[in-house]
């Protein structure tokens, strides 16, 4: 039983990692843009959720939806006005710009809300235990696993079965070719950037219970989001899904086994893995 409950806990945090990181993977795959500020969108989403529940009395689900819309809109504005200028810039400029953006968002959140960490008050139907027959486990963790799996299914269908999904896959694999057959990669990018940031916001809200929520959030989890994307492969939704679950479970187990410095093994494994497969789990060579 102990094994199963550890596994469930790890899967729940893996799902949060997936929901936050999937957008980053797709946008990086499309534009090769190094967006270190992705975690900041997740943080903003978390704050929108907490604030709208506390001050406007929105139910949890509505607050998540609001977080998605608000952050997606902000992402479109930022993308059109600022990010778009740096697509052809060097990696270094992109790194600098997005670190700067992270600092600005951290400072604005600290000024507006304060430096202390925030708690999401879960609705009754998610707070408590559920009997699965063979094990009793936290309802919220189970709900996270369900939500993450459904999202994976929806994204997979969207990618494999819709026209836009086909365009995105084409552009990730070969941007020039996609453009020359008439795919407007710029618009596609704005769309995926907005969707990805919105999903990150949802992940920030859903994951606040597990990852916590305070202004340092984007920097604390930066390495995790990047590892998930690098291991999963850029622009690969299924890859990111498995990478996130793997890292979620590993992290959960290691933090129990080695409370101090246990995450060392994650970094070591990532190093070894990326050397063997620099393109990620399902990435193709040279893509």
């Amino acid at each position, binding site marked *: 039983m102990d094994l199963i409950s550890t596994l469930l806990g790890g899967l729940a945090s893996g799902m949060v990692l997936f929901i936050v990181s999937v957008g980053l993977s797709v946008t*990086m795959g499309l534009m*090769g843009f*190094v967006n270190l500020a992705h975690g900041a969108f997740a943080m903003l989403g978390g704050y929108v959720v907490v604030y709208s529940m506390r001050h406007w009395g929105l139910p949890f689900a509505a607050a998540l939806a609001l977080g998605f819309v608000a952050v997606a809109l902000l992402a479109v504005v930022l993308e059109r006005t*600022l990010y778009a*200028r*740096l697509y052809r*810039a060097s*990696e*270094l*400029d*992109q*790194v*600098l*710009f997005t*670190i*700067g*953006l*992270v*600092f*600005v*968002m*951290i*400072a*604005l959140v*600290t*000024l507006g809300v304060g430096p202390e960490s925030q708690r999401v008050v879960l609705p009754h139907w998610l707070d408590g235990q559920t009997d699965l027959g063979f094990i009793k486990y936290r309802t919220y963790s189970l709900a996270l696993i369900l939500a993450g799996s459904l999202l994976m299914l929806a994204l997979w269908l969207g990618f494999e079965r819709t026209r836009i999904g086909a365009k995105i896959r084409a552009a990730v694999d070969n941007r020039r070719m996609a453009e020359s057959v008439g795919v407007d990669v710029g618009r596609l990018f704005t769309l995926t950037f907005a969707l990805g940031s919105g999903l990150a916001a949802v992940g920030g809200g859903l994951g606040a219970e597990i990852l916590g929520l305070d202004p340092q959030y984007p*920097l604390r989890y*930066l*390495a995790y989001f*990047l*590892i998930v*994307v*690098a291991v999963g492969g*850029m622009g690969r939704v299924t890859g990111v899904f498995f990478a996130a679950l793997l890292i979620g479970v590993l992290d959960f187990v290691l933090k129990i086994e*080695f409370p*101090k*410095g*246990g*995450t*060392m093994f994650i*970094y*070591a494994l*990532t*190093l070894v893995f*990326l*050397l063997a497969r*620099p393109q990620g789990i399902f990435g193709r060579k040279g893509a």
Partner: protein
Amino acid sequence: MSGLPAVQELAARHRLRWWEALPWIAGIAAFFLFPNYLSFGTLVLVTILFALSLDLVLGYAGIVTLGHAAFFGAGAYTVGILAAHWNWTEPLSGLVAAALVAGAVGLVSGWVVLRTQGLTLLMLTLCTMALLEQAANMFSGFTGGFDGMPGLSFQPILGLFEFDVLYFRSQYLYALAVLFACFVVVRMLVYSPFGRSLTGIRENLLRMHAVGAPVRARQVFAYAISAAIAGVAGAVFVHATGYVNLAVLGLDRAAGVLIILILGGYGRLYGAFVGAVVYMVLEHTLSKAYPTAWQLGLGLGLMLVALYARNGILGLIDALRRRWSTP
């Protein structure tokens, strides 16, 4: 041929110019002018040295890294562990040990990591640093874990100059001397054929492969040298302050030194000096009084630099000078 202005300029580019004496004059003048700020001054000198080491990989070899603090930390922990566990407190041999250990870490990690490029490379440099940070956290019996090793003391430099815990006089001069020695080495390297080929690799990787340059060996070598110098900076930091903790290995330090170098201007040796002084003076005066406003300003500043002033402060000065001289 040799009469062409471009050729003459190329042939003379390694010569010393009068303004290259300025940083050192300023460094010595600061010793007499600000006797009460020498502990801060020492930290500025350490940061300059650290940024200079980054300039070698980032500015000259064109390797974008988010994990350069790994080597600063390797040097710092080398000196700290030697002092705390083996009572090895002689500073100059400590510097050599720190350089060797950090250089070895750089050689091994560079040999492994530099096979990749782009985002993967960025990730792997970050991973190397996080790995070391967590290792230092885990083996706390050895490294002091989260609290680190406070209260280290070292023998007098060359057996003559006691470390001065109150006014940091000897620390400041010690840091200045080490910085000068390392700077001479870096300057020689940069203007050597080796340095030229690094620039070639940065500017056109494919062509350097095509002309038969040993690209990866050169990159790894530059990475290791830079790591050794960063290790020396970390060692001087520990000698001067008498403590080590996990912060020497953190993302904050790695991002900070990157920002400092870009702010000053990378790939031009003196960017490290200008960037470290400007950044640290601003931080020192603003961050204590208005920490959040400082972070906001820093963030906005970075975004502006990335969008409009990619060559940093020295680049701006160059651009202004050029505008002046061509009416």
